[in-house]
């Protein structure tokens, strides 16, 4: 077995009390990830409806409606990601930077990959009507955008996962070996399923508020569109009842007991059951009734997402706390030695000057 590395931390105090930094990290990360869900889910749904649009024209209109939302959502996804990045840099400096360095080539490739994905998304959206004659190319473009949007989160996830396990650092040689660490793919599946689910709810919100003329332009009825949104929200959520527990049970064991993590995720599952029930009821409602439970569903989703964020943070803390104690001790020890050596050297220099 490889020895566990214990590096030193940066010897400067935290810029704020830890709970504030944790709040910044957890709250803004959730806001970020919701918009990432809209962005990735939006791209996937656009592709799906564009393909269906080949046979039935009105699906193409629907695809366009969804595609039109991606560009704003993606800008918010990026900008909301900066705050949590700042907080994770501060709170988990050693862990985060180490994971970054070990997967460095892929980590930095996030920049060109996201730029490419965004530029293609603009081309796909703004040249939609000009590309009517080159439909195959236009759909291929949507396919490439989806692949990029599916791959980029994997880089983030691999990094965030690697950072939690110092005992694995010495065995990792680049991105692909970090990708193979336990829990990466189950967490990834959990994230990917959340994308169409969140986008489904977003669709309901979108088509609830559009005016009649805009709804008519799609070739669907309002209730039909909202029902589609609910179906997108419901079925991936149902699948989460299998994938979620798998992601939870494959979490590597930690030195600290995980009771609070299990409790939080357990409550999240119960709340999700209630939410899924309401979603199911909505899909069965007729035009006059549909949308009645939208606000409660969103409220429950907010609770579920918040519990996920809290559970995630509790697990992260459980995974790194014992190791962080070691780092703290080592940093203190090092700083003591550095100060002592400096005093010694200064005294020696002063003595030389006297001579």
């Amino acid at each position, binding site marked *: 077995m490889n020895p566990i590395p214990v590096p030193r931390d940066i010897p400067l105090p935290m810029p704020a009390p830890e709970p504030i930094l944790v709040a910044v990290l957890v709250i803004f990360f959730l806001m970020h990830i919701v918009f990432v869900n809209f962005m990735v889910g939006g791209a996937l749904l656009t592709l799906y409806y564009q393909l269906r649009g080949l046979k039935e024209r009105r699906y193409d209109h629907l695809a366009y409606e969804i595609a039109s939302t991606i*560009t704003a959502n993606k800008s*918010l996804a990026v900008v909301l990601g900066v705050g949590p990045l700042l907080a994770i840099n501060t709170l988990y400096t050693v862990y985060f930077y180490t994971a970054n360095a070990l997967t460095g080539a892929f980590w930095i490739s996030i920049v060109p990959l996201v730029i490419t994905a965004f530029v293609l998304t603009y081309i796909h959206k703004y040249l939609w009507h000009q590309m009517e004659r080159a439909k195959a190319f236009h759909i291929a473009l949507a396919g490439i955008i989806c692949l990029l949007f599916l791959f980029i989160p994997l880089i983030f996830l691999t990094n965030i996962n690697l950072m939690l396990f110092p005992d694995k650092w*010495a065995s990792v040689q680049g991105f692909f070996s970090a990708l193979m660490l336990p829990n990466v793919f189950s967490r990834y599946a959990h994230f990917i399923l959340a994308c169409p689910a969140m986008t489904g709810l977003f669709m309901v919100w979108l088509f609830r508020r559009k005016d009649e003329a805009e709804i008519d332009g799609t070739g669907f009825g309002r209730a039909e569109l909202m029902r589609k949104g609910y179906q997108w929200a419901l079925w991936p959520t149902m699948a989460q009842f299998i994938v979620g527990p798998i992601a939870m049970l494959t979490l590597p064991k930690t030195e600290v007991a995980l009771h609070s993590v299990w409790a939080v995720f357990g409550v999240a599952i119960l709340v999700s059951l209630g939410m899924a029930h309401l979603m199911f009821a909505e899909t069965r409602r007729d035009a006059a009734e549909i949308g009645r439970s939208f606000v409660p569903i969103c409220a429950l989703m907010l609770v579920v997402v918040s519990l996920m964020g809290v559970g995630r943070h509790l697990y992260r803390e459980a995974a790194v706390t014992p190791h962080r104690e070691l780092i703290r001790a080592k940093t203190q020890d090092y700083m003591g030695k550095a100060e002592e050596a400096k005093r010694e050297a200064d005294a020696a220099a002063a003595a030389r000057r006297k001579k």
Partner: protein
Amino acid sequence: MDFPVFHLDGMGNRWLIALIAILHVLINHGLAVGMMPLVAAMEWYGEKKKDPRWDNLAFQILFVCFLITTTVGALTGVGIWLSVSLVNPYSIGSLIRVFFWAWFTEWLVFITEVCLILAYTLTWKKWSERGGIWKKRHIRLGFALAFFSWVTMAIIVAILGFMMDPGNWLTDHSFWTGVLNPLYLPQLAFRTPLAAAMAGIIAMFLILFFTAKRDAFRNAALRAVGAWTLAFAPFVVVAGWWYYTSVPAAMQGNLGVALATMEFEDWQTKFLQIALFTAVTILVVVQFAISRPHLLPKAALLVPFVAILWMTGHFERVREFIRKPYVIGQYMYANGLRVDDYALLQRDGILKYATYSNPLTGAEKVGLPENLTEAQRSNLLHRIQKGKDVFMDTCSRCHTGQGVNSISGILQKMFGDQEWSTDLTAGTFEFMHYTRPFMPPFPGTKDELVLLGEYLAQLQRSKAVIPGAQSVGITVNPVSAARLAETKRQIKGDAQ
């Protein structure tokens, strides 16, 4: 160093940051900070004159900016962080601890900026059609966007200024003394009109695409934007002079060495020449655009544009001059080690406190001297391994093995094809910071200098590319493992 060492042996680590940062500054200054007030002004002017052509042109220019700033602009901004945290995690980690709230505030302003540019661009058609109060609101939105774009720059410049000259922060360690460092205002004053002039030139370039050659409106638009550009030019010169004269005072704190001063004087002379050249090209081309707009070829506008880029690039380089050999003035050297670490490391050695080792690859072991017994070979490889760790921990942030600013190239220049013996190399490195004052002193012991020398001798034989932790991973130093066990016992003991 206490992070696994990310390393790019071809382009060099600094170029990774430089490429991303240059692109970002270019987009930020030219297309956001300088352009947003210009676009809002155009929209306002079109509304005032009831001339939809202005409105149309303003929207087209905005749309180009929108596409570029929300893709390349936004991502290179994040990219600066990602790249710096790979290349020099110690410096960015330290800066974040000091400037967390500055960055946090900048982030809030940035969110506002992104929301405003989305709103400004996406509501343009709708609100314009509604007219009246809605159009006025839209114009106000444009000026608000311009203001917030400028504020993000104003905050970041404080952090850049801090890196050059931490001023009183070293004794005071407070956030505000860092922000209010002596280079802050001159730098901000220089960048602001520079951004506006840059935007003017880019807008003139775009006008040639968005208007027809014989269109009278092209002339009017070129004239107006030309006047905008010329209006900011004197401020570039005045603020440039202010900045230029503030630099030496800031530099004195770091270096007083003749050689560095000479290099700085070269930089200054060149800066003056480039600034003069830029000013003249702007004047000539803009004058031409105003007086003979229909004869103006698109390529002509590239000349002042490239000149501004050149000037900006050269201007940005001053930070290196003032900063070196530090990455955070007088606090942390460019190798990521704190000034206060030096006494300890020079006494006990850097390897004693290094958590990681950077495993030698097969290619790096090629060309070992022949006729060695197995024991001698293994001993030599062990020493070369240690030498490589010294190199990675103390040299690799600035130097590659075979690529840009490579140690091989430098040694080749110094010693040619003769064998790079440890006498030659270790002897040189011990005193190099006197002859090359922009370099930090060697932080380790004399033995480690010799180990470094042995590694470089092997590098001369192997000519191998040095991989980073991102491809070959790391190994954990056994010293560190032993100490870990001891620390664990201590923590347990404390707990009991």
